[in-house]
């Protein structure tokens, strides 16, 4: 019975997700699209942080690579965004592989510092090389569809997000996922059972980087303006907060976190740009008192109700 529930719940959600464009305003459709972007980012970040325990700060940078590569290919070489996004994803994957190879063996603190440094170097280069990237003025890029339609973008993001989540779900529940969690729980034990922990982590890093690149490419061509804000630490923080508050180490956590935080930030925006501060405080409280996030809190209640 539990298995059937697992199968039907996502189907229900996917079917429900078809309907929003019929009754949501353009503004809220935009919010949904942005939320889907963050769902992809937070879920892929969760793949390395929540499941292999490595806090990478380069995630926003990977999305920036996806966005800028795709954008510049479109603007300077006339590539179609559909192709550009795939190439951007590839570029991000390659950099993920390289960065992963470089710093995975260092672990913990060193990995965080390296990814932090990498992210900032990228942002500085992008900001300064404005001859090519248009720096803080922003690079204007074409969209996916010749006729701009938020509804089309919504379905595009929805489909890609579902695919991405499906991939992540398969990874988590595959042997690779078991390996990830073994590494997370006890690296020494894992490596003495013969798991090549380094290879596992590099692979996770690369996949998550690729997804971030894909998300970034989509985001860039949706906004049609690519700025150094995309690979910034501010974005990194939002992604991190969504994963933490939603619940790291769970599949649904980042999804919930992304929607909740993005929608909340729209409401809070009325009072000023305080949503970052607020999310930070909540994230601190969650990390301190309820490390399993919203899903952890809901999960406990669920289990109490459903256990008999």
């Amino acid at each position, binding site marked *: 019975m539990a298995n059937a529930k697992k199968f039907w719940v996502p189907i229900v959600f996917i079917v429900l997700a078809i309907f929003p464009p019929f009754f949501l305003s353009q503004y809220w459709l935009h919010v949904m699209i942005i939320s889907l972007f963050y769902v992809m980012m937070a879920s892929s970040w969760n793949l390395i942080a929540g499941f292999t325990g490595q806090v990478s700060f380069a995630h926003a940078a990977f999305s920036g690579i996806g966005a800028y590569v795709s954008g510049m290919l479109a603007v300077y070489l006339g590539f179609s965004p559909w192709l550009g996004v795939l190439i951007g994803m590839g570029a991000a994957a390659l950099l993920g592989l390289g960065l992963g190879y*470089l710093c995975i063996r260092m672990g913990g*603190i060193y990995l965080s*510092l*390296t990814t932090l*440094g990498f992210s900032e170097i990228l942002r500085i280069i992008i900001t300064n090389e404005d001859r090519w990237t248009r720096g803080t003025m922003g690079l204007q890029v074409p969209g996916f569809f010749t006729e701009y339609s938020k509804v089309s973008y919504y379905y595009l993001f929805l489909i890609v997000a579902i695919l991405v989540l499906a991939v992540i779900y398969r990874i988590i529940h595959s042997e690779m996922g078991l390996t990830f969690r073994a590494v997370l729980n006890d690296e020494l034990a894992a490596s003495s059972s013969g798991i090549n922990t380094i290879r596992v982590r590099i692979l996770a890093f690369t996949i998550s980087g690729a997804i971030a690149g894909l998300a970034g490419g989509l985001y860039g061509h949706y906004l049609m303006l690519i700025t150094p804000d995309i690979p910034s630490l501010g974005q990194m*923080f939002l992604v991190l907060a969504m994963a933490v508050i939603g619940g790291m180490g769970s599949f649904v956590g980042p999804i919930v976190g992304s929607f909740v935080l993005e929608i909340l930030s729209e409401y809070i925006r009325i009072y000023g740009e305080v949503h970052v501060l607020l999310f*930070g405080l909540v994230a*601190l409280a969650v*990390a301190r008192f309820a490390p399993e996030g919203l899903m952890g809190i809901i999960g406990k209640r669920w289990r109490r109700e459903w256990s008999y």
Partner: protein
Amino acid sequence: MTEFLMYLTNGIVIGVINAISAIGVSLIVGIMKVVNFAHGELYIFAGYFSYHLSTTLGLPPLLAMPLSIFFIFLIGIGMERTLIRPTYGNEMYSLIITFVLSIVLQNAALLIFGPYPNKPPNLVSGATNIFGLYHYGNQRLLSFFISIGILLFIFYLIKKTWFGKSIRAVSQDREMSSLVGIDHFRVNMLSFGLGAALAGAAGVIVAPIFPVTPTGSSAISLTAFVVVVLGGMGSLKGCVVGGLLLGILENLGAAYISTMYRSIFGFLILILILVFRPWGLFGQRTQ
């Protein structure tokens, strides 16, 4: 030639301040294995305290500066007790918590202090003739000597006093140190406070020279991290050497190569060291 000497002196002055800032990070990393991402924010909070105490409240700068450092010390202790302590042993959460804390503090600073740069008043003014070769600002010279004083004090504290010994003991082997009777929770708390206070000291010393802004905190944290990694985690003299090296390199690089890419030098050094020699110049090879 005079120009070169000026850049060099700038580098040295900034270098010792970097060193103080880096020791603040290094202490915490060495003892608690926690990277204090909120380091830069503590630094600028101190600068703002110093500014407001001396300007808005009218306290004499000589009083405002140590008082600001003391407040930061208290804030550091508070941080440790409420947020960091529960994350002992869990590296991932301590990284996340200090990172989020840094964002929170940064935004709080924007909210409380406003986005405009503030500069506490100089203690001294005018310039001195150095060795008859060039003139250099007196405030910077004073900052240099204060920094040297603080560095000497820290070295004395760590190497000669009992507290310093307990810090070294806890950083070497926590279990053993508690077995011989050291209250390692208290050592943690005090050393976090001390680390924060050093960040504050650096901020207070620099603020009369370079005004503080809430957005400058990330660069400050990252400079401190680069110095710690360059010098070697857990090595005090590494921080001094690393701080001087970085200060000189960044100033000369910005002057002769490119000002726009100034911060990149630090990051590049960071990544190069982390890849090729993660234990830095004077650190221990634990890999």
